[in-house]
């Protein structure tokens, strides 16, 4: 049972999958997978319609978005204050707070906490933060088995696969593939799948229930993420659907929660905004089936030991960028993935990160450094659908454009010799600066362009421009530029 990905090396931040191809290469492969594209198209269309239906039930949706964005902005601008407050409240309620600068430190902390209990197995609630740091792999290296209990995460784990979506990580798999996987793999992890398992989702969910039941009832240690943590009260919130979260949060003796530092919100009443926006934006429901909130430990109910691990892992770097910091407002609803024309065609794996889609394209490069994910800011058409769908109003196109400039800058400083692109841009700058040069260039382009055009279109551009024209037609330049036309026809009329 070895996971495909190694545990992150010391000093590494995880997040991205080592050795994953750059987005353009990965996208090309994904686009050739017709089954994947059919799965994605059906799934994203379904969830888009549901989201729009329940969001439009609330005529103050935009007011809720404004409030959510403002609460997140207030928190980000005073993050130190709120984290210290959270630490005080959680500690006062009987919990223990740990701070982790990076993935390696968070993994060390969690592993030591599990080892202190003497247990060799943990049950897990679906958590992006623990995916990000590669916790399961790290625990495996220490001889501890982590069981994913969310149905989709279980599918990913049994298939030795990677998640492809924030909300529904196994969206790239259809029911038949899942049935085959359950039949082949469940027995190696515990309770095997029933004989002659069908591929009806109801039957598959039932198989997962039976497979995990005994683990829930006997687990002594659970690991979770957090959707929110309230600074004022120390209350931690987990939003889920299946009840696997409730199982993990209430039955074991020890609960370890790993939470990105940006998940803190100021007050209990601030939750009223997010508990309305999140379920409607993510699953398209008025409310998700189960939301659990707990404050430290409670005598006679739930875990006797609660640990909260506050994770930085690149978040303070993101915070330092005045344009990019808004990405920290993300509540991981995945609405942006479901409306993105690029994601719908490439799927999540192409992004090479646990955070795929539009939010991944702005979050991943900021968490790991632009040079580690230089192609991601370009993995977008900048159509803006993600910004419209985002419940916390992250202006993803603005951050993408900002990161594109950074990616170019990073390339420039990394290369001693300028790239062909940089040379071309420099030349273009000179030409655009000078009316005389521009007129000459336009004339040359008009002549040259019309010579190679067919039906007013140029299919293939020459030389280094070919890369651009491989996927696009270029309209043939007009016979004369506007400036020339003006001089001829209008100049004398003033």
């Amino acid at each position: 049972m070895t996971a495909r990905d190694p545990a992150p090396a010391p000093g590494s931040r995880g997040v991205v999958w080592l050795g994953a191809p750059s987005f353009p290469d990965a996208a090309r492969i994904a686009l050739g997978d017709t089954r994947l594209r059919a799965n994605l198209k059906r799934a994203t269309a379904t969830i888009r319609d549901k989201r729009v239906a329940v969001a439009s039930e609330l005529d103050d949706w935009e007011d809720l978005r404004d409030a959510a964005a403002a609460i997140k902005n207030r928190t980000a601008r005073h993050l130190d204050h709120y984290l210290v407050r959270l630490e005080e409240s959680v500690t006062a309620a009987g919990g223990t707070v740990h701070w982790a600068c990076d993935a390696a430190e968070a993994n060390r902390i969690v592993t030591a906490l599990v080892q202190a209990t003497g247990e060799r197995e943990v049950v897990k609630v679906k958590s992006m933060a623990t995916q990000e740091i590669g916790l399961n792999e790290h625990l495996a290296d220490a001889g501890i088995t982590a069981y994913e209990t969310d149905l989709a995460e279980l599918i990913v784990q049994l298939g030795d696969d990677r998640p492809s979506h924030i909300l529904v990580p196994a969206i790239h798999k259809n029911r038949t593939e899942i049935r085959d996987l359950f039949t082949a793999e469940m027995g190696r992890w515990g309770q095997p799948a029933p004989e002659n398992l069908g591929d009806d989702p109801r039957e598959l969910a039932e198989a997962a229930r039976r497979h995990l039941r005994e683990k829930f009832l006997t687990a002594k240690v659970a690991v979770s993420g957090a959707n929110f943590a309230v600074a004022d009260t120390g209350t931690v919130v987990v939003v889920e659907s299946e009840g696997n979260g409730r199982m993990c949060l209430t039955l074991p003796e020890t609960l370890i929660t790993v939470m990105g530092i940006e998940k803190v919100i100021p007050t209990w009443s601030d939750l009223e905004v997010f508990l309305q926006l999140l379920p409607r934006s993510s699953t398209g429901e008025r409310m998700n089936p189960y939301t659990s909130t707990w404050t430290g430990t409670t005598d006679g109910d739930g875990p006797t030991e609660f640990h909260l691990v506050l994770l930085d892992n690149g978040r303070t770097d993101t915070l330092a960028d005045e344009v990019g910091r808004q990405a920290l407002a993300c509540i991981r609803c995945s609405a942006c993935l479901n409306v993105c024309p690029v994601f719908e065609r490439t799927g999540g794996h192409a992004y090479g990160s646990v955070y795929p889609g539009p939010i991944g394209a702005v979050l991943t490069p900021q968490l790991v450094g632009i040079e580690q994910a230089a192609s991601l800011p370009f993995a977008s058409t900048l159509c803006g659908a993600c910004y419209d769908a985002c419940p916390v109003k992250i202006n993803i196109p603005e951050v993408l454009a900002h990161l594109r400039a950074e990616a170019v800058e990073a390339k420039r400083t990394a290369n001693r010799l300028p790239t062909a692109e940089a040379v071309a841009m420099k030349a273009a700058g000179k030409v655009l600066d000078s009316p005389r040069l521009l007129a000459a260039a336009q004339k040359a382009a008009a002549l040259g362009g019309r010579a190679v055009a067919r039906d007013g279109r140029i299919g293939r551009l020459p030389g280094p421009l070919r890369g651009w024209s491989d996927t696009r037609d270029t309209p043939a330049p007009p016979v004369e530029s506007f400036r020339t036309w003006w001089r001829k026809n209008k100049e004398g009329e003033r």
Partner: protein
Amino acid sequence: MNSRDAILGRIRTALADVPAGEQPHDVPVPRHYRRSHAEPGEDTVALFAERVADYRATVTRTDRAGLSAAIAAALTLRGVEQLALPGGFPVELLPAGRWQWHTEPLDIPGLDALDGALTLAAAGIAVTGTLVLDTGPGQGRRALTLVPDYHLCVVRADRIAADVPEALARLDPTLPLTFVSGPSATSDIELDRVEGVHGPRTLDVIIVDPALPEQP
């Protein structure tokens, strides 16, 4: 330097653009959103019943006099006999019959052997069709309504808040809270919603209207 100080130091460096004198409350939060999405004068109890039913849970409305019969009818329909009964549940409401009521202490295997649980609720939320349990009298600890496969929940009409903001204002965040909107569900397979995964696969709700008298 320990990690706590390192992270807090990095945050302060990252926020160099924030004026030194700025307090958290100086950052404005516009709250123009509605306190409730129920229409003025709307029957929130009827709305609650409708929205709970949307999740494929069964909803019954009864008055105090009909409550025992409503409980008996639900249990009979579901064919459950062994039930967890939390401390503080008003025993005079229990129907006479073949049902076995199991009270604490109950360990996890003991809970797992039962057919279901019968509880009260701390609150309801009409617009979202949500029940909230806060482990108070008649609700039991969280495992009670989680491990058995059937949950029958009795909610007083006067405990039903119109919408999320009002409900949160009524609840005590220092208690462990569970918000329940229908039976457990998943959409993980082809986004096809399936009710009944790890939590109770069946949820029945009885609304008591007018309300029960306060428990002493």
